[in-house]
């Protein structure tokens, strides 16, 4: 195909891809398609030769004909042209596609902020701390979501998840368990209504674990509710920033409750979600504590979202340190995967799944499209982090989605509008990153998260190397990411 338009006298040059090596084998991560191809001797040599500068095809073949058979070189050049790793030097760059999602794109996940009240006062909280965007204390939003609003939200999800067999509800807060009665009613109601509509709804919630009681744990296990615990690590870490309103640390309260939950609740995996700050950066210690001592199946770690001037904001040296520790855990994860064993570092697993499928994202996440947040009053926002913010509200569960507002959001946040990202090889996976992070950092959700570029590229590169190693040595392990 393409090869037929390249004549022998035309000049070949490298096109857009990111190379990585595992155990001496070169792989290309194609940009923007996100396909991964394994190179061999001749293809390596061709890429190396063109890496020094564009060459006329005949010259390239002459240069390499001492090492390889000419037919082999010609075939390999054709294949490299076909996957667009190389091409005519004058060929225009592929434009960044700017096609919008089709009208009627289904909603699959709804995050219900059942309360905006919390019994903890974590220093770094984006909902209550210095970077909050909604006045959760004196604002107009009700403190708790009413049972009626929760039911309307369920109806909204059933309607908007058109065509999907399964939909997801995640309960969020504030501290979710402060509104336990509404959780119970909503799950029962949603189950009944979903059955009537021939659908299935799955549930999960996030909690700080302070309010877990035996009867709540029973209910979570019986109802197969996925649970994510917000926790920062061992006592000295947890008690530093995750404190009650009187300043007292929360570790001693949550530790026995979490152990009880992990003992009783086996119907869904229970994960820990750690917020890393400049004040708690010992990733390895935190991870070991939460998996080995606490017994969590999976632990995911994310850097705090905040402005640079806060004393808990992670500095650029801190980001390097964090990356290095992530690298250590990632290598451990790989060792386990090579032996078909489980390792609870969920950050790797999530990225590998996207690498395996070859996702090339038009948006940093599904907010405002496949995922939406519902505030306590029933207003629908981009995601739970924007719940209650008028600027980021795109409808309500009673009146539906404001399609004009959603459409404008989808145009403004599309990768095609993020010119800064257009030369970055990691854009298929990153696509500019979290809208809330961008809003806090730059004052607008449509801004790409440029302060994380180096970090994202390094982390993606690490995960690509892991993927290469697995594809070579234990490819059947990757089957779990199929579907």
């Amino acid at each position, binding site marked *: *195909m393409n090869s*037929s338009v390249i004549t022998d006298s035309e000049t070949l040059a490298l096109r857009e891809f990111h190379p990585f090596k595992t155990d001496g084998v070169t*792989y290309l991560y*194609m940009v923007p*398609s*996100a*396909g*991964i*191809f*394994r*190179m*061999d001797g*001749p*293809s390596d040599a061709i890429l190396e030769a063109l890496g020094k500068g564009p060459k006329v095809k005949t010259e390239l073949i002459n240069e390499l004909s001492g090492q390889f058979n000419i037919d*082999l070189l010609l*075939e*390999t050049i054709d*294949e*490299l042209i*076909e*996957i667009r790793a190389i091409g005519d030097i*004058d*060929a*225009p*760059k592929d434009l*960044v596609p*700017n096609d919008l999602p089709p009208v009627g794109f289904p909603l699959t996940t709804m995050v219900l902020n059942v309360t905006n009240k919390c019994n903890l006062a974590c220093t770094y909280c984006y909902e209550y701390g210095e970077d909050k965007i909604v006045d959760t204390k004196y604002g107009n939003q009700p403190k708790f979501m009413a049972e009626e609003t929760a039911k309307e939200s369920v109806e909204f999800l059933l309607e908007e998840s058109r065509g999907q067999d399964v939909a997801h509800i995640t309960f969020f807060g504030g501290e979710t368990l402060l509104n336990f009665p509404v959780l119970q009613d909503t799950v029962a109601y949603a189950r009944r209504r979903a059955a009537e509509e021939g659908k299935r709804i799955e549930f999960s919630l996030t909690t700080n674990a302070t309010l877990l009681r035996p009867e709540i744990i029973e209910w979570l296990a019986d109802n197969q509710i996925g649970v994510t615990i917000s926790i920062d690590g061992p006592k000295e870490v947890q008690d530093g920033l995750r404190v009650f309103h009187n300043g007292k640390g929360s570790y001693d309260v949550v530790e026995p409750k979490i152990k009880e939950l992990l003992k009783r609740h086996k119907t869904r995996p229970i994960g820990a979600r750690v917020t890393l700050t400049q004040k708690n950066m010992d990733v390895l210690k935190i991870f070991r504590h939460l998996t080995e001592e606490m017994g969590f199946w999976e632990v995911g770690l994310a850097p705090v979202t905040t402005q640079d001037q806060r004393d808990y904001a992670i500095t650029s040296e801190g980001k390097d340190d964090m990356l290095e520790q992530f690298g250590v855990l990632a290598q451990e994860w790989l060792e386990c995967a090579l032996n078909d064993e489980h390792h609870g570092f969920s950050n790797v697993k999530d990225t590998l799944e996207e*690498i*395996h*499928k*070859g*996702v*090339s994202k038009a948006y940093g996440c599904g907010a405002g499209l496949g995922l939406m947040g519902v505030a306590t009053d029933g207003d629908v926002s981009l995601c739970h982090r924007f719940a209650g913010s008028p600027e980021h509200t795109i409808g309500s569960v009673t009146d539906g989605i404001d399609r004009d507002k959603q459409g404008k959001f989808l*145009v403004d946040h599309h990768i*095609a*509008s*993020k*010119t800064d990202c*257009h030369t970055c090889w990691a854009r298929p996976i990153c696509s500019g990153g979290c809208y809330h992070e961008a809003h806090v950092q730059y004052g607008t959700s449509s801004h790409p998260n440029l302060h994380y570029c180096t970090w994202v590229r390094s982390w993606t590169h690490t995960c690509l190397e892991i*993927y*290469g190693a697995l*594809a070579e040595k234990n490819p059947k392990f990757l089957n779990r990411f*199929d579907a």
Partner: protein
Amino acid sequence: MKHIKAVNQKAARIEAWVAYEAEQTQPAELDVVGLESRPPHEQNGPHFPLGCSLVFSPGWEADSAGGTAGLCQPVERDIFDCHLSCFWPAHVPDQLNHSPDWTSTCASAQKDWRKLDLIFP
């Protein structure tokens, strides 16, 4: 492909697409795409519209109601629609040969059209 190996799922799809395209290159198949009525998934690869005069997409000569009240306004909105695949009523730099990056700083024409600069040889 004999030498390069597709590793992830997307690469396998690219390989399948390349093989499919190679099969479809008989000259008889290369007809006027815009006049074909087969469904999109059976067409020969991407669909390149042949321009206003054939499919009559409203634009420079008439608006969607057939009148002239709602012509392309502002004109820069249509630069990507019109100057690449269709009639653009003014000279633009030659993007195929000499100025392939002319629009590279203009991700969204409506917003960034001021970045489209003159070309000084």
